[in-house]
């Protein structure tokens, strides 16, 4: 493996909160090394991605709650054909959908770190790795995954 700073070549769109700020705590949390997702104060439902209301009980009282970065691969894909100019020289890369079984089976998207041509196993345990892009303007942090 080469010593790359980041899993993907730089130049993809940087994530920033919406004008209404819905996902702002999530992106700020990652920069502070915390994975925060929404939990309903009223019915304790875990919810992802961010929404203004609990879809189970319609309460607006959702608390950004810290979760441990342990999950299992729910699905995956290996991208070969780049559709963004930033990835022209990237080569293949893996996107995983990770299920957090301890937190209502919510699913989170990331890359699977390591060899891009490695075998990917649905159901395999993975843990979170935070990838800080501090030099980017704006700075941001991505939630990545690797085999446990």
């Amino acid at each position, binding site marked *: 493996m080469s010593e790359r700073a980041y899993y*993907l070549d730089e130049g*993809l*769109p*940087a*994530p*920033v*909160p*919406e*004008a209404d700020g*819905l*996902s702002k705590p999530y*992106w700020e949390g990652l920069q502070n090394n915390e994975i925060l997702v929404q939990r309903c104060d009223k019915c304790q439902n875990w919810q*992802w*991605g*961010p*929404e203004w209301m609990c*879809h189970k009980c319609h309460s607006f009282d959702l608390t950004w709650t810290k979760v441990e970065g342990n999950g299992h691969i*729910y*699905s*995956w*894909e*290996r*991208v*070969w*054909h780049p*559709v*963004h*100019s930033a*990835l022209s020289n*990237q080569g293949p*890369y893996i*996107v995983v*959908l990770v299920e957090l079984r301890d937190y209502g089976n*919510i*699913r*989170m*998207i*990331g*890359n699977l770190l390591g060899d891009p041509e490695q075998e990917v196993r*649905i159901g395999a345990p993975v843990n979170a790795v935070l990838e800080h892009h501090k030099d980017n303007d*704006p700075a*941001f942090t*991505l939630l990545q995954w690797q085999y446990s």
Partner: protein
Amino acid sequence: MGERTLRGKTAVAGIGETTYYKHGQAPESEFKLALMAILAACEDAGIDPREIDGFSSYSNDRNDPSRLAAALGTKELRFSNMQWGGGGGGGSAAVGNASAAVAGGMADCVVVFRALAQGQFARFGRGPQVPTISGDLAMASPYGLLSPAQRFAMKMMRFMHDHGVRQEAQRAIAMASYHHAQNNPRAVMNGRPLDEEKYDNSRWIVEPFKLFDCCMENDGAAAMIIVPAERAKDLPHKPSYVLGVSSGSDHRCAAPSHNAPNYASSSFASVAPHLFEMAQVTPKDVDVVQSYENFTGGVLMSLVEHGFFAAEEANDFLKVDNLLAPTGKMPLNTSGGNLAECYMHGLELQLEAIRQIRGDSPNPVADVDVSIVCSGPMVTPVSSSIFGTEATL
């Protein structure tokens, strides 16, 4: 109040399309293409274009009904409707919305249309080339999950894992479309056949989709005219009646960041049962199938969720011979569809479903009474439609 159904209340009076082009190669403006397709459908129906009093489209078609009505010099405009949602998910719903307007007395002659000239506008398959991104896209784009193929590949990967579906099942779907296109002079891929070796040697776009699992992007326009059923007998063609239309998606299909409860799905799980209930037919009664190919895996899941076979039977059922007109068990995408005829956002599939009923398909299936279209798998909303001959009423 009578029974709440569209069954048998409307008919397809005429169909028409422009020449189909590779993307960016249409010599005409997109609006002109729309007009040309509408005029062709009117001529096919033997209807004066000035009689059109309604317009129905989908996927944010850019050609505004009021402008079309003015350009055509229609006597009056009574219905202008856009089905929400992107991709081809609205193809059948647009027929349903037109039929609902006609059956409900809101309009008498509604044209369903779709026009695309991507050289003049942005393409679908490119990722967003912007410095920052927000909302649900921000959860995906920074990880290189950018295009429709990339958005849907993980659904199919999970489905294949859950049910043991093999790559050859997707290959058979691609080969059926290409096979049918070879008899279709309208098809962009006419003269460019596909065999197993060519498919197997083709590059991955995103696993589990190879190059030939992915639709083209094209330029052109297509149109279809919906009238009250009682008018159908006075029209030049053998009548095709709308038997049923259903659209939507099941519980929380659009849950953000790939959190749909029924994830490995074409989005038809709840839609298909409503369709067959309205049409009063079963999957066994269907003579020929048009199923929207954004990606072959989406077709596969659509066929399963419409009840043509069980997921565990996919490897056995999806053999090329089973899918070919005229003799296959279930002739599929008999014009070449989005893969090989034209990516007209699936409206070309509606036209082909009607041609099969009339008997003038380039790959005719004998004695078609029931013809189905499944539109736009894996997006939400999706939709599907069933057409039938007079014998089915």
